[in-house]
């Protein structure tokens, strides 16, 4: 296993910059998710680590060795693709053996490794089948097995779960996590699904527009988003972002105002922002039935019970926001509610730069 280091990596397609000055260190044995919406540069980044795309600038090193000019096969990496990319004309056994054959490994050793991977992934009974005779989940396991037999320094995974149905995806998610725990493998995992990144990764690199937005543990990214994009991308439902302006004692929007703790206010003042975005997750909003000092009035638009938790779409001045409540509480559309924000979990972002204050 090995450390992967990206320094000032750049890649453009024509005029557009797909990856813009990306620097990232993935520690030995770490599971890192590159996460972001379509077109954020995450797959381009993965393909550059794999050696399937050339860099326009910067440097990539694996295990301390610069790999910019190395072929994929010389980088000691294995890759799992979104559509599994199993060789359709080969049996599962031959699919698993292929990367070893290409390296000229002895027959006995190939058989041993294939059997071991098959046992580990519980696909021993599928070895003589062709890929088209397998279910999506089985194909996914075979694809994983083909990466595993190589015993590579780094596993690269390109949205490996996105073609599975929801139930199977949850199951494979925990299998992948166990796979990582057992192997202590360095894994770079690309996904557009923030939940996948949150649940599996040791650290997540949130990308947007080719730029790295934040690189930290899922807990910290969730609790302390570096900017408004990360705040709105990570977490489901997304963090509420409410436009407001700074006042003497706190912030105000149209028709509401809120006093802020002095420390938070001072931080916002220091940044010199006039316009701010108030960031608050649904769980940090208390719902009170009557006017209370320090609470702001909102109105219920719709109620969405999900069983465990009930989500409410609310209207605060000219802004819409989502709050949540226990399922045993009842609300009716049009009803007024007083929102009490948990001050320790409030976020402020500069309205212009969208950076956290």
């Amino acid at each position, binding site marked *: 296993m090995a450390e992967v280091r990206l320094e000032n990596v750049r890649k453009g397609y024509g005029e557009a910059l797909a990856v813009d000055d990306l620097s990232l260190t993935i520690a030995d044995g770490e599971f890192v998710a590159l996460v972001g919406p379509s077109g954020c540069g995450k797959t381009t980044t993965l393909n550059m680590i794999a050696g399937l795309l050339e860099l326009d600038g910067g440097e990539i090193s694996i295990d301390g060795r610069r790999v910019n000019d190395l072929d994929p*096969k010389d980088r000691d990496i294995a890759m799992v693709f979104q559509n599994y990319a199993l060789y359709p004309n080969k049996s599962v056994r031959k699919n698993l053996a292929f990367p070893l054959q290409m390296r000229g490994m002895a027959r006995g050793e190939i058989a041993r490794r294939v059997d071991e991977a098959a046992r580990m992934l519980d696909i021993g009974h599928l070895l003589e089948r062709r890929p088209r005779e397998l279910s999506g989940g089985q194909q996914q396991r075979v694809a994983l097995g083909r990466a595993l037999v190589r015993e590579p320094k780094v596993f690269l995974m390109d949205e490996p779960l996105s073609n599975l149905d929801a139930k199977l995806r949850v199951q494979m998610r925990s299998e992948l996590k166990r796979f990582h725990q057992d192997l202590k493998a360095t894994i770079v995992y690309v996904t557009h699904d923030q939940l996948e990144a949150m649940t599996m990764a040791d650290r997540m690199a949130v990308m947007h527009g080719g730029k790295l937005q934040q690189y930290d543990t899922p807990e910290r990214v969730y609790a302390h988003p570096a900017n408004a994009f990360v705040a709105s991308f990570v977490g489901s439902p997304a963090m509420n972002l409410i436009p407001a302006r700074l006042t003497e004692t706190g912030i105000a929007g149209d028709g509401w105002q809120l006093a802020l703790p002095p420390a938070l206010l001072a931080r916002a003042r220091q940044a010199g922002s006039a316009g701010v975005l108030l960031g608050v997750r649904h769980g940090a909003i208390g719902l009170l039935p009557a006017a209370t000092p320090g609470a702001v009035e909102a109105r219920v638009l719709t109620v969405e019970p999900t069983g465990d938790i009930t989500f409410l779409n609310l209207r605060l001045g000219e802004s819409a926001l989502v709050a949540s409540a226990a399922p045993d509480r009842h609300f009716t559309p049009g009803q007024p509610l007083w929102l009490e924000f948990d001050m320790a979990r409030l976020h402020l972002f500069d309205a212009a730069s969208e950076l956290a204050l």
Partner: protein
Amino acid sequence: MVRHRADYLYVAPAILVMGLVIAYPVWFTFYLSVFSTPPNLALEDKIFVGLDNYGRILGADSVREASLNTLVWTVASTGFAFVLGFGAALALNRPFRGRGLLRGTLLVPYVISAVAAAYVWRWLLHSDLGVISALAMASGLRSTPFNFLDNTDTVLASLIMVNVWKEFPFVMIMMLAGLQTVPDQLLRAAQVDGAGPWQRFWHITVPHLGNVSLVTILLLLAANFNGFTIPWVMTGGGPAGASEIWITQIYQLAFGRIRFGLASAYSVILFAVMMTMGYFYVRALVGKDRPS
């Protein structure tokens, strides 16, 4: 059944036309093949001879020679056209400057009329007046003209060369279309797995092209087996029958010597071979849709 009656009405005109232009001639050929016909157009004077015509065709020395020629002509034309066309497709599949122009240029042999091409090639290969001989002599490469078409040893090879030139673009188009459906992700996976360009070609591209190759080869085999224009226009089967193939012999028998009965029996044999090929063609086409 009642509900479908109208359906038959709708397809009736098409069935009628097909019956007239396909089924009737086929049936009439079968019918004529069991008669001895006079060497004129008075078909009323034909005499029933059973399978005699078939016996005469299958026993004739000239047919045996033509059969060997037909085999060589069909297999060699198909083989060389396939190899050349596939090579061209591979070369043109990767992007380079001027690729579009080159693709267009290489299509020219396929789109020009076979008769025109055959005449031009006959002239190019002519031993006395041909450009190729003239250039070879003018440049001092040879002191005597090439004798491509008037030599029993080289005439068939020359015809095959022209035929390959004429039909390799067809292979190129088919294989280019096939190459463009090779999934990029498979090639990338193989690249990461350590396969070099040649191994990727062998393990990914070739298996993926299996079906399109099979269909292309079967279409070529059928077209060449029936390939009349080039041999007929360029040599008419000569010299001394050295470039005679089944189809030119049938034509000569029917419309040169006016032996319709004999020519019909010969045609039925050719038809049987073609239908066998057709069977494999259809099987190859539907085979890939069949669940395993």
